[in-house]
């Protein structure tokens, strides 16, 4: 890929940047989940792996895991989907493959640098916006703005009259993530302090999920399900409802992350009501996708990409039921700050979103490389280990969170809560390790697809071909 950095744009084969982003995202997924597994082991066995000094301490590694999966795996898989799906839906080519290749290179370089400084303890001390401000500026300027320019220009130079649902989301989300990045990091750029800093920390954390991860993941499903099943999207209008309610309802509840802080009460109440209204885009999305599946439910079993996407959609149901209600005052006091929330965050990122992106990366890489997936068996192993590993993680952390919540309200001495949670810490480590191993299998399968996958003839889609292994 690096040879294309200095090639003429016309000489770069279509799809190069998407392939580059696709493989980068899988590698970051392996790294990110590997770190997650290691972190979980530290919590389960605190006296193991000592002697490495600060670089192997939990406090230095937790944020590296979080940022590797959000900005490495998830966001790069999004970029892969954008480089691939945006031009297809506009019946055109990507505006600039060269910009895409540069974008991916600068992204890998910047993220590696950012994770290294975080690992060394150079942090802003703000959850989810932990990167020091020079990394934040780099990510805004060298990562998100070039990505957005490529997406917007591709949409502007499209050869169709209308813009399909997926591309509304791509265009809007790339815009919103830039705004969120710049506004959310204002405390670091301009040294804003106190409650302003605390509030903007969670304004960023909320909106990077609500205006970037959730809508882009959903937009991918709006492409993969109609494309692979051959069914048209069930309802364009429900898509409208989804889009507008994301912008209006998902961008406002940031304060519900700080229900126990002395923020203005009106703001907390407002955030809580808006938080329940997130169910509007959530239900619109899930129903639209599941209704698009009508008559093609056999593909949920038979087709790997559909199975990934529909699993992600189904996981969106508990995700949003939790998300809508756990932030209300009636429930938040019980679960806030417990493992329940950790489980919920993994349901969002490793459950819902990862399965949708996984489908896009599977589908996109096969289509662009014109190679059928090397092994269905390995694909199935990946799917089931990912799903079972995630489920073990989610269930164990949810139970741990409920124990912790009970301990909190009955004022059990804290150490007894730690003792009670210990078996679930071990279970979480086992689940997380399964996820990590499954991703190594995926990386191998994709690598072998590139090298030895059956060639897909021109004019055919990979899902129309039979598997050979």
């Amino acid at each position, binding site marked *: 890929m690096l040879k294309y950095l200095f090639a003429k744009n016309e000489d770069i084969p279509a799809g190069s940047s998407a392939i580059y982003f696709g493989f980068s995202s899988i590698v970051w997924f392996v790294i990110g989940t590997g770190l997650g597994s290691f972190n979980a082991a530290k919590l389960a066995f605190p006296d193991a792996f000592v002697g490495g000094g600060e670089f192997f*301490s939990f406090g230095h590694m937790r944020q590296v895991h979080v940022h590797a999966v959000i900005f490495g795996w998830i966001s790069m898989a999004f970029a892969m989907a954008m480089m691939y799906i945006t031009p297809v839906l506009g019946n055109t080519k990507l505006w600039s493959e060269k910009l895409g290749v540069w974008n991916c290179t600068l992204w890998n370089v910047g993220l590696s640098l950012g994770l290294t400084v975080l690992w060394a303890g150079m942090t802003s*001390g703000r959850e989810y916006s932990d990167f020091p401000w020079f990394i934040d500026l780099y990510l805004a300027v060298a990562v998100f703005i070039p990505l957005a320019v490529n997406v917007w220009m591709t949409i502007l130079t499209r050869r169709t009259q209308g813009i399909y649902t997926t591309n509304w989301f791509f265009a809007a989300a790339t815009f*919103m993530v830039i705004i969120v990045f710049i506004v959310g990091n204002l405390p670091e750029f301009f040294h804003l302090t106190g409650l302003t800093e605390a509030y903007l920390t969670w*304004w960023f954390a909320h909106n990077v999920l609500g205006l970037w991860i959730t809508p882009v993941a959903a937009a991918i499903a709006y492409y993969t399900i109609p494309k692979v099943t051959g069914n048209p999207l069930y309802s364009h209008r429900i898509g409208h409802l989804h889009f507008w309610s994301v912008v209006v309802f998902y*961008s406002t509840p940031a304060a519900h992350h700080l229900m126990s*802080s002395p*923020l203005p009460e009106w703001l907390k109440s407002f955030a809580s009501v808006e938080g329940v209204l997130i169910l509007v885009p959530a239900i619109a999305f899930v129903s639209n996708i599941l209704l698009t599946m009508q008559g093609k439910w056999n593909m949920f079993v038979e087709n790997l990409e559909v199975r990934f996407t529909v699993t992600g959609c189904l996981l969106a149901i508990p995700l949003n039921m939790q998300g809508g209600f756990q932030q209300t005052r009636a429930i938040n006091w019980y679960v806030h700050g417990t493992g329940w929330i950790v489980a919920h965050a993994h349901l969002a990122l490793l459950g819902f979103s990862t399965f949708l992106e996984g489908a896009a990366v599977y589908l996109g890489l096969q289509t662009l490389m014109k190679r059928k997936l090397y092994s269905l068996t390995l694909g199935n192993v990946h799917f089931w280990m990912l799903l079972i590993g995630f489920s073990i993680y989610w269930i164990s952390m949810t139970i741990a969170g409920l124990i912790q919540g009970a301990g*909190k309200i009955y004022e059990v001495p*804290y150490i007894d809560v730690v003792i009670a949670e210990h078996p679930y810490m071990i279970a979480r480590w086992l689940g997380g390790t399964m996820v990590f191993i499954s991703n190594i299998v995926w990386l191998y399968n994709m690598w072998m697809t590139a090298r030895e996958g059956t060639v897909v003839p021109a004019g055919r889609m990979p899902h129309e071909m039979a598997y050979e292994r």
Partner: protein
Amino acid sequence: MSVNFREYKIGARMFGLALGGSMLITLLLPSFDIAASVSTDVALDKQLSAGWDSGWQLGDPLLKGHNKPVKVLVKNDPLTGVALAQAETVYVYPAGTSLPNGVTHSDNLGAGVKDLSLEKGKIKDAKKESGAVFLINHGAFNGNNLPYVENATATKGWTPDAVMAKADDANVSHVGSGKTMFVREGCWWCHTLLPEQTQDWQAFGTPPMLGDFNGESPTAFGSDRKAPDLLHVGSRNSSKEWMMLHFFNPRLVQPHSIMPRFDYLWGEVDANGKKIDFDKWRAEYNEYHEGKRVAAPEVPMYAKDSEIRGLIDFVLSLK
């Protein structure tokens, strides 16, 4: 090109309106409430002891706890040596140390506290180049008794050098660099600094008030609580010895703890300048853990300039 398709023009404007409206409600409106908050004693103590910023900053790029003030208990007047009627806690900013947020941006102190700090406290006379000594005083403003920041270098002539020359090391507390350690080592990934307004009162103390955070950065509330809240830990446990054992290996005092060891914050040598043999300590601890030794190996006393000193000082300052 169909850029000018009418629906998309309307759509783009509606989008701007929706997102702009959302930002108006979630950013602009709360900013008035937050800007109206008035610093409490707690906020002044926190910002004066932590200094400019405890996260990444140009003055301390590797988060080593540099560019930080120290908190000193002054019993005798540093100029005359005469015993003070009441010991004063002062915050010493040696020359070149970045001044705290409330001094550089006095609006952050809030109405009243700002006026008192400027008029009575003379905070505008403090200069980074020459350093300054601050303390917290109280005064009347519109009938209210409010705390304010006093620049003791301007009001009393107490210079950083004069205070430090007379200060007994036992009365010097490195809370500022300790907050940096708290942030760098990720203590806040498990220990929150935010007792909740519901059931946390009895176990972890009162939740913070509006005005308790002015000038503090980062606030490091934490969100994923895997360990006790620490906002008032210094009131529950004020033993330096316990903290020392607990940081070196938490299992020494709490066998079921899942906290990591922070022995590496001791650095290379102990208080006597002797090299700390971590491998030997760990081997002996393992023998103790397996029941082959009656007592755990001795935890070395930390050196005066070690990182752990700051961290312990910070934790004990959380009253």
